[in-house]
């Protein structure tokens, strides 16, 4: 086994990103789709931190992007869960196949 470096972390974050995409494509429950989105956002964060550490260690731009992405992800999760709970209240289901009244 090799000494882990940038490429190992890029492998992990790519794998996590596509795991999240797979979950997003196959799940039909809104909460599990939200979890897949969290996985995707986390893989992007890992990417930013890895580039910050291995390519530009004297700068901190990747770190700040990660902090802002985490803040946006928190806001997004809160709004999404508010919408999901409201949908459940009206619909008694959070399956996307039953949520077609969002269209109108």
């Amino acid at each position, binding site marked *: *086994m090799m*000494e*882990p*470096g*940038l*490429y190992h972390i*890029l*492998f*992990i974050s*790519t*794998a*996590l990103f*596509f*795991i999240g*995409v*797979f*979950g997003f*494509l*196959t*799940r*039909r429950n809104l*909460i*599990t789709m*939200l*979890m*897949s989105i*969290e*996985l995707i956002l*986390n893989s992007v*964060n*890992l990417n930013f*931190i*890895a*580039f*910050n*550490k*291995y*390519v*530009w*260690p*004297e700068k*901190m731009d990747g*770190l*700040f992007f990660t902090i*802002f992405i*985490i803040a*946006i*992800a*928190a806001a*997004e*999760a*809160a*709004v999404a*869960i*508010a*919408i*999901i*709970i409201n949908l*459940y209240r009206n619909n008694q289901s*959070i399956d996307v196949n039953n949520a077609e009244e969002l269209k109108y």
Partner: protein
Amino acid sequence: MMNGYTILFYLLAALTLSCGIMSIATRHIFRAAIYLLFTLIGIAGLYFWLSYEFIAAVQIVVYVGGIVVLIIFSIFLTQQAGEKLTRQKLDRKIWAALAIFCGFALTMVQVLHYQFPLSNNPATVTVRRIGEKMMSMEAGGYALPFEIISMLLLAAMVGCIVIATRSKPEVK
């Protein structure tokens, strides 16, 4: 050859990836949330491993302490106990697996062929430097994005309250 640093990396990577896979493969939604929790803890461990302690702490506080708890609460509010998620059609799974395999292969080929300008300087990230940069209004400072994020959080908070307030039932 194999020192503790390397072993720790592979352990964290295995934890993150296996829990990530389980989180989208399991049919119990509560278990999916718990596996997501361990994935996020694994990522926080990777930040510690990269010696970005501040980001690791933020990850644990915001994701593990905030978002996963929020997700678990919403599972409690919306799911019946013991209910399994509906099984998906096989062809949809096959097409999705094919798509992500192609995407993964394409991305990894591109990444492995690209020569990143690696630098060997040690990263010096202290909380003091982060705070100074965050509030700095000079070129390269992050005061404006910081203000915009605070407006976004305020808007999200107001939006959540408006959405989640129970409206009076309309006469149909």
